[in-house]
């Protein structure tokens, strides 16, 4: 199966954006990846061996954290694994008086393609 390496981690995978592994589970695929490229391990896992909180792993279009068997989920050669660090932030500025409330809806339709 193919594992897609995000831009920040390619430096620790000999510059590759795709790494091919042969594995039967998600955890097996990640194990093979970090055996081949040991420098990746500290970027993906905590000292206790858990995926870092900001590292998302997607099996095809599914977040592995929400799969019933999580990292023990079986994989096939045709599957893909995407490693995607999270992205968030914001000004954290306090709201100025007189501004309209942002509400809880109406963003996604306008902002998405």
């Amino acid at each position, binding site marked *: 199966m193919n594992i*897609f390496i*995000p*831009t*920040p981690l390619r*430096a620790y995978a000999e510059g590759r*954006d795709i790494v091919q592994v042969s594995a039967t589970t998600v955890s097996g695929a990640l194990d093979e990846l970090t055996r081949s490229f040991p420098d990746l391990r*500290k*970027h993906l896992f905590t000292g206790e061996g858990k995926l*870092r909180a*900001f*590292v*998302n792993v*997607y099996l095809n*279009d599914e*977040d592995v954290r929400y799969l019933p068997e999580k990292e023990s989920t079986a994989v096939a050669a045709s599957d893909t694994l*995407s490693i*995607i*660090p*999270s*992205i*968030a*932030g*914001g*000004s*954290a*500025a*306090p*709201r*100025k008086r007189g*501004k*309209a409330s*942002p*509400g*809880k*809806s109406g*963003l*996604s339709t*306008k*902002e*998405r*393609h």
Partner: protein
Amino acid sequence: MSTLRIARTVYDALRAHGEETYPHECCGALLGRNTGDGWRIEASARAGNTRTDSAHNRYQIAPAELVKIEREARNRGLSIAGFYHSHPDHPAQWSPTDFAEAHWLGCSYVITAVERGRAAATNSFLLAGTTEEDKRFEPQGIEVSERAESPAAP
């Protein structure tokens, strides 16, 4: 100081995005090629801001949307080179929240101040360092290229 090279069409588009979503923060990804001496941004991808609970001062891109953006970029021969977002009625400087939530080492974080609905300053910051422990934001110059986007790689 490093320089982020960005096509005029992309630069204008990300600033316009901030105006469109005002008074909320906009967000999106910057797609480009590493030319050896830095990134050349050739396209951008708008993303939805999932922080609808506090969209005036927070943004977040759903990981599932990032997976799709990354896939489409790869199909065009491009990589995610950074991200952009807006600061409505707030300076175009990174905030402690921006820093805490920044994990794409080696990538650019572009911030546009939007003052009363109009795009003002746009600044870029390189997330430098090699780990979460030594990461830091470094100011980057922005070089806007008037040249049209180059065609995607086959």
